[in-house]
Structures are given as structure tokens and as C-alpha cells.
């Protein structure tokens, strides 16, 4: 099998891993070497499904010994199997990198033989890239659950970021779908790496290599096991707080295997729900929202029609509308239609002059949404109150016009009114 064929098989096998970020690490080009890491991360292209491609994301091998129901590489699937040799993979990475196709390597693997053996293969590639080829680009290594702590520690010395996927948000469902896995076995490497990183920070000097400078991330499948958004966001909040994760990714379940434990093959991936979860994640990371403000016991799932920020605002009419001349920065951030950049502009600009509507427009504020939640010198006093039941329909996207099919025998299905 030649490299091209292997690349096709092993990148297609890795495509369900969502993470492709190259941020969080700053590294100079090693003396006489190739490549650096840019802390903001750089996207190099976008695939036809609209996801950013920034790393060469491949599996070392897809010959897996496990049989997880949701996974394309499970033992019982009849698919072509392939394994890269370290040299093939290193050459590909360096040549792609020199052409500025990628920021670096995202290396994962199916479990071949034992977890230790698999982890050793991944480390060998990273180590050779760093030491023999003086490669300064980004390396993301998957931590294989069950690998020894000595190996995990080594991975942390060569990689910028490491990740272990939690896969299914609830432990019970995970054990049901993936009999060889459970949450405890996944938390173990996560916690180990998080602790080593903390320890390392205190003893680390300017000249010693850094331990996982870009931290850890994880990923969970959404819509495969009937979990609620409250469960998902509680879990990801825990990852941010306890394991100091840099990112938690959500992957809307794409049915790939016919399995009676999973949604039918004809199910469409829950893309809207996934999008709403990412919006909620953004609110937690950049907009100072608590997870329990976004969803709670009464509303355990996100509103699919409306983004979580607008739904929060409509549930809390007592805070709105706010005066943009005087409101706290934190409150500006909570206005639907105002993003981080415009909130900063407003906060710095209002010290000099009154901010009026035309300013907001020029700053890039989405007035179509924001207008109901703010008041400014031009708003008449009678409009300085928020009526959620009136505003909600105005925020929803306009319904698509109905397409008439005059040749079918089916009676016309009119959308329900109300």
C-alpha cells in the first residue's frame, strides 16, 4: 500500500475528531530547524463541510481492537485497515508544513495491541519530529486511555496539546455503547496530565521544555444517547474548572454504523443543536456566563430556534433595556447583537462622547437584535421597557415561503399556526 492510499484511509478515519485548533502555544523556530507556533492559531483552509483545517489530522493506525458502537473504526466493521510507518508520517508532516498547508500534526490512533504500545508509536513520531528534524510547529497528540503514566508524561513533553475524548456525556450510556470503556478510565489520563501541568508550572525554568503548553481538550458526541443539554454543559463546565481544559468540543452524531443501540442510519446529524451548544460554550468562555444561567432544571435543553444569549435575555426582562452610556461592561456583553469587540469599543468610546445609534451601526453592532435590549439618547421614554412575548417573534428568522407542488396527490400541508 502506498502513502497516498494510506493517507486517504487514515485521514477519512480521523475525520470525526472535531478538534483542529492550533492555538495556545507560542514557540520560536528551533536553531537550524523548521517552524514555529503562533499563539492565536492559524486556519489554513476550510473543508466542504465548513470546518476549519489547520492540522494534518490522521490516525497512526485504524486497526482497532475495541468495538465501540458509534465508531467507524470498530473491530466489527469491514473496512480497509492501514498503518503508517513513522517515517511516512514524518515526511508527510514536514512536506505539508513547508508548503504552508498546515500548522502541524494532529496524531491519533486506534488502539493496536495494548494502549501502551499505541501510545509509544505516537510518541515516537512526535519525538523524532522535535529532536531529529527540529520541528517547531504544532503537535496535538491523543492520550490513549490505559497507557502508563510514564508514557503520558513523555507525550506532554513533545506535544503542544493533548486530548482524551469523553465520547458520551453520561457514564452509563458510554458503558452501554462502548463495553471496553468507562468514564473513570477516561478521567484518569485527563487528571494525570492536568496535575503534571500544574506541577510543572512551578518548577519550570525558562530553558526547560514546556509541558503541554496549549493544555488539553476533549470531545463528546451529541445526540447518540439521549442526554440533555444541561448534562452536557454541566460536564463541560466541570472540564473547564477542574481539568483546566482549553476547549470542549461537541460533535453532532453522524450515523455511520447500523446498530440497534444507536439512532437509525437515516437520522440527520443534529447540526442546529450542536451549533447552539457551541454558542453556549462561547458564552461560558468569552461572555462570562455561568452554565446554570444558560440552561437549568426548568429548561434543560437549549432553544433550537433562538440563540442562548437571546433566550437568556428574554427570560430576564428585569435587566433590560440597559443604558449603553452607563451599563457595566459585563452587562454590555449580555446584550444580544453586541459582541466582545463592539462591547470594548462602546466601553472605551463612551468616555469621550455619547454613543448614538449611528455609532453602534458603524461599530458592527447587529442593531436588528440589539435595538430591543438597549436604550440610548434617541429612544423615547415609553419604549424603555422590554416585553419578551412581543420581542421573541421579532428575533426569530422569517419562515421560508411555502413551495407549492401542484402535481402531487398529497393534500397541501400547511404549517400549523400559533
Amino acid at each position, binding site marked *: 500500500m502506498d*502513502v*497516498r492510499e494510506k*493517507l*486517504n484511509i487514515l*485521514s*477519512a478515519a*480521523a*475525520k*470525526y475528531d472535531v478538534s483542529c485548533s492550533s492555538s495556545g502555544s507560542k514557540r*520560536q*523556530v528551533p536553531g*537550524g*530547524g*523548521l*517552524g*514555529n507556533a*503562533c499563539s*492565536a492559531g*492559524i*486556519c*489554513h*483552509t*476550510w*473543508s*466542504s*463541510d*465548513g*470546518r*476549519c*483545517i*489547520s492540522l*494534518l*489530522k490522521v490516525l497512526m493506525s485504524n486497526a482497532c481492537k475495541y468495538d465501540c458502537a458509534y465508531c467507524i473504526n470498530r473491530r466489527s466493521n469491514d473496512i480497509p485497515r492501514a498503518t503508517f510507518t513513522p517515517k511516512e508520517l514524518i515526511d*508527510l508532516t514536514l*512536506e*505539508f508544513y*513547508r*508548503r*504552508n*498547508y498546515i*500548522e502541524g500534526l494532529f496524531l491519533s490512533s486506534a488502539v493496536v495491541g495494548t494502549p501502551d504500545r499505541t501510545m509509544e508509536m505516537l510518541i515516537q513520531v512526535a519525538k523524532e519530529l522535535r529532536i531529529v528534524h527540529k520541528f517547531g510547529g504544532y503537535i496535538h497528540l491523543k492520550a490513549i486511555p490505559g497507557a502508563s503514566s510514564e508514557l503520558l508524561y513523555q507525550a506532554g513533553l513533545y506535544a503542544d496539546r493533548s486530548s482524551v475524548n469523553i465520547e458520551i456525556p453520561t457514564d452509563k450510556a458510554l458503558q452501554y455503547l462502548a463495553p471496553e470503556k468507562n468514564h473513570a478510565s477516561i478521567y484518569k489520563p485527563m487528571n494525570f496530565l492536568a496535575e503534571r501541568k500544574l506541577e510543572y508550572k512551578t518548577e519550570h525554568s525558562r530553558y526547560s521544555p514546556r509541558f503541554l503548553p496549549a493544555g488539553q481538550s476533549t470531545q463528546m458526541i451529541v445526540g447518540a444517547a439521549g442526554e440533555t443539554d444541561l448534562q452536557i454543559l454541566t460536564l463541560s463546565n466541570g472540564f473547564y474548572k477542574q481539568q483546566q481544559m482549553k476547549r470542549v468540543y461537541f460533535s*453532532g452524531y*453522524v450515523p455511520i454504523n447500523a446498530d440497534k443501540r444507536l439512532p437509525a442510519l437515516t437520522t*440527520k*446529524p443534529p*447540526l442546529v443543536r450542536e451549533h447552539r451548544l457551541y454558542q453556549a460554550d462561547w458564552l461560558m468562555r468569552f461572555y462570562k456566563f455561568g452554565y446554570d444561567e444558560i440552561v437549568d432544571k426548568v429548561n434543560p435543553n437549549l432553544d433550537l430556534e433562538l440563540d442562548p444569549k437571546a433566550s437568556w435575555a428574554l427570560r430576564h426582562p428585569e435587566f433590560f433595556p440597559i443604558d449603553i452610556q452607563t451599563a457595566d461592561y459585563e452587562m454590555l456583553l449580555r446584550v444580544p447583537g453586541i459582541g466582545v469587540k463592539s462591547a470594548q*469599543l*462602546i466601553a*472605551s*468610546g*463612551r*468616555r*469621550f*462622547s455619547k*454613543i448614538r445609534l449611528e*455609532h453602534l451601526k*458603524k*461599530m*458592527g453592532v447587529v442593531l436588528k437584535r440589539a435595538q430591543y435590549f438597549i436604550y440610548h439618547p434617541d429612544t423615547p421614554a415609553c419604549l424603555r421597557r422590554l416585553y419578551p412575548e412581543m420581542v421573541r417573534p421579532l428575533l426569530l428568522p422569517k419562515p421560508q415561503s411555502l413551495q407549492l407542488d401542484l402535481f402531487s396527490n398529497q393534500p397541501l400541508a400547511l404549517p400549523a399556526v400559533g
Partner: protein
Amino acid sequence: MLSISYDSSFDGFLSVVFEIYRQHLDVGEIRPDRSESPCNMFMQPFRIETSDESAQRLKRAIINQAGLEILNTLDVAFRSEEDGIEMKILAYLRKLFSEEDSRYAKNPTSDEMLPIYMTARSVRHEEGGMLGMVRFSRMPDGTYFAEIEPKYDILELMIGHFRGRFANERWAIYDSKRGFGFYHDGKGREPIPICIPNMREVAAATKADEFVRLWQDYYQSIAIKERENPKLLRRCLPVRYWKHLPERQAPSKWA
């Protein structure tokens, strides 16, 4: 009223501003030489040559009055090559030097600054995106060569990044829309400006690189068919960049 023409460079523009102040010129418009729109026939044409000295003096004055960061913002906004950006910057500088309000320079939302600020933001946005979208091909002599056609004049802003990243490689990036580029010899010297008259031959030679095929393959197999989203793709990766991205050149299996 004068229609002032200059050589399209930032220093040239600063020389224009300097002369406007020195000679008390009544300026109606400022036209870069690259501009193809017809000259306003009701204005008298006037030429100002670039002078390094006056540009330096004006730069120092801006730094003293407003700081280096503002000078950079003006420079970046100027690279947008937007019609009339010169008059916007001039309006800002007039207000800045009129000394009505000593805190004026610190306000990013003033009527004069906000449009410049937003323009600079979109130039920086394209620069950041273009860092990832430069595609080198290995030429027969071992130089890595890339051709770009950005909307704004951002090549100079990007060079530092590639110099850091590929410090020990020989590479060249060429802006074929504006007809200039930079060559880096991999020995630690400053990248030197180049021009390429026989661009067609060079572009043909880039096709011979065998890794282009592998990259196209990778690009195809990493996409998830069930999630295909052409609208999102076009928003993230505008069609105007596709010309120089090999992965968007190959006939796609879907989309």
C-alpha cells in the same frame, strides 16, 4: 481646489499631507497614481513628489501627538487602497493637530477615527487569514514559491511571520495583483523585494509539485459528506481566494 496626485505609497501620502500643511493647499481630492477613475475636471491637477524627510517628520509628529499604535492603524488602513481613504486620514490628522481636545487621540469612536479603525480591522483580518492561505510549491531549484492575490496590500505585513516560521528555507511570495513580491534566502538576511516578468512560466512550473496531489486527496477525505455546508464554506473561505488554493481547484467529489 486641487486634485493632488502622488505615487501611491504611504510615505508619498504623508509627503502630500506635509505639503498641504506647509503650503496651505486647498485640497479637493488626493489621487494615488494607481487610480483608474477619471480625474475630476473641475479641479486643478497638482503633483507632489515623495520626500523621505517630510514623511519622517510627519510620522514623528503623529507619534508624539497620538502614539505609535495610531500611526500603525493609519498605515494599515491606508493599505486597504480604498477609494477616498486618503481624505479620511487627512480629516483625522487635521482634527488631531488642531489641539481642540487633548484626549482626542485616545478615542477610537470619534467620527473621523471610527471608519479608519473599522477599515484597519478588515485589513488586519485579511492579513491574518492570508497567513494560512499562502500555498508554496517546490520549484525545480528547491525554492518554495507562492503566488497570492489579496484584496488589500498586505504582503509586507505578512513577511515577518514567514520569516520567523521558515527562517532556514528559501522561499518567495509574490503578489501578482500588484506585481511585487519578496524573496528570502534562508541565511538570516532580510527578505528582498522582487518582481517576476514571466509569471506565466513560473505558474506552470508550480504545477509539477507532487505533494499538491496528496494535499488535494487529504482535503477530500477529511470532509464529512453528511455535514456538507457550502454556505458556511463560502463565508469562511470566500470564493475570491480559491484561485490559488490547490485544494479548491481539484474537481470535488461533492459540493
